[in-house]
């Protein structure tokens, strides 16, 4: 077995190709996350800059404005922290410790991802529905939007849980005798 393994031919890469791999702009995953992050952050920042005048922020009470702004700002901060975490996959001095720490981090991220999205949704719904004269059509519309948001949260939770469960099995296999 060892002879077969050792005789496996290797496709060598040049130092220039290896040097290119150190850059975020050529990284297969981080590059996409960075573009998505920049687009989302720009959209939230534009909304923050114009909401007060364009969407009648001044006519709403301070706490509605506060929840709305808090929702947007924490969404930006959460996106940034997610990007930084995606850069660091190695979390310990051996594989077992690294997986244990990485799993703890993923579980925290699952909670904060749900919390962050929930706060953003509450802020948006509160802000845009405040002061509206309610009739059955508007109530149905708000309930429909809330249901879509809730479904999004459920899908997000399922995605995180699936990944966590898979890593839990791998981590257990590493530690088992």
């Amino acid at each position, binding site marked *: 077995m060892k002879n077969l393994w050792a005789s496996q031919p290797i496709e060598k*890469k040049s130092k220039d190709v290896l040097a290119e791999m150190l850059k975020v702009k050529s990284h297969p995953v*981080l590059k996409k996350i960075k573009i998505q992050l920049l687009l989302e952050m720009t959209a939230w920042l534009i909304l923050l800059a114009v909401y007060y005048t364009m969407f009648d922020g001044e006519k709403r009470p301070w706490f509605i404005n506060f929840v709305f702004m808090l929702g947007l700002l924490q969404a930006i901060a959460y996106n940034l922290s997610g990007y930084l975490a995606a850069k660091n996959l190695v979390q310990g001095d051996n*594989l077992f410790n690294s997986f244990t720490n990485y799993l703890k981090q993923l579980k925290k991220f699952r909670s904060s991802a749900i919390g962050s999205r929930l706060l953003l949704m509450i802020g948006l719904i509160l802000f845009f529905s405040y002061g509206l004269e309610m009739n059955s059509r508007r109530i149905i519309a708000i309930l429909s939007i809330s249901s879509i948001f809730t479904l999004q949260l459920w899908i997000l939770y399922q995605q995180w849980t699936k990944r966590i469960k898979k890593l839990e099995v791998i981590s257990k296999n590493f530690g088992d005798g």
Partner: protein
Amino acid sequence: MEENQFLALISANQGIIYKICQLYRDTNVDREDLFQEIVFQLWRSIDRFRGDAKPSTFIYRIALNTAITAFKKEKRAIVSYTDQLPEIAMEAEQTALVQRKESLFAAIRKLEEADRALIALWLDELSYREIGEIIGISENNVAVRISRIKNRIKTTLTT
């Protein structure tokens, strides 16, 4: 560590990364992506390399860690093409060797991620102590598990 020194280190040890990509990804595109992710993570972790272990041990640890934790795309239908035309004159012996290598890699790929890591380290002649340090388990545990994995591979190869 300076970038040039780092690149020289990776260049000299890229066979380790190449083999791990072969074991943990099914398509060439995914293997290339993983190779890049491993080099990137090594560069980010290199300041934690204290020099009291062999550089190859450090590279194995980061590479295996990355291969298992990095985001993996959902499995696609795999259509594999060989990059060489079959040559009639190809020695029968050589063909048999290639087939045996492919069978070995296929048998290892069938193992759980943790077992794949253990057997890859053993096949690359790391001692039980070194394997234990990389994985985070005792030498005895390594010995028992390697023995079990070898038996499993033998069974797969003979059936």
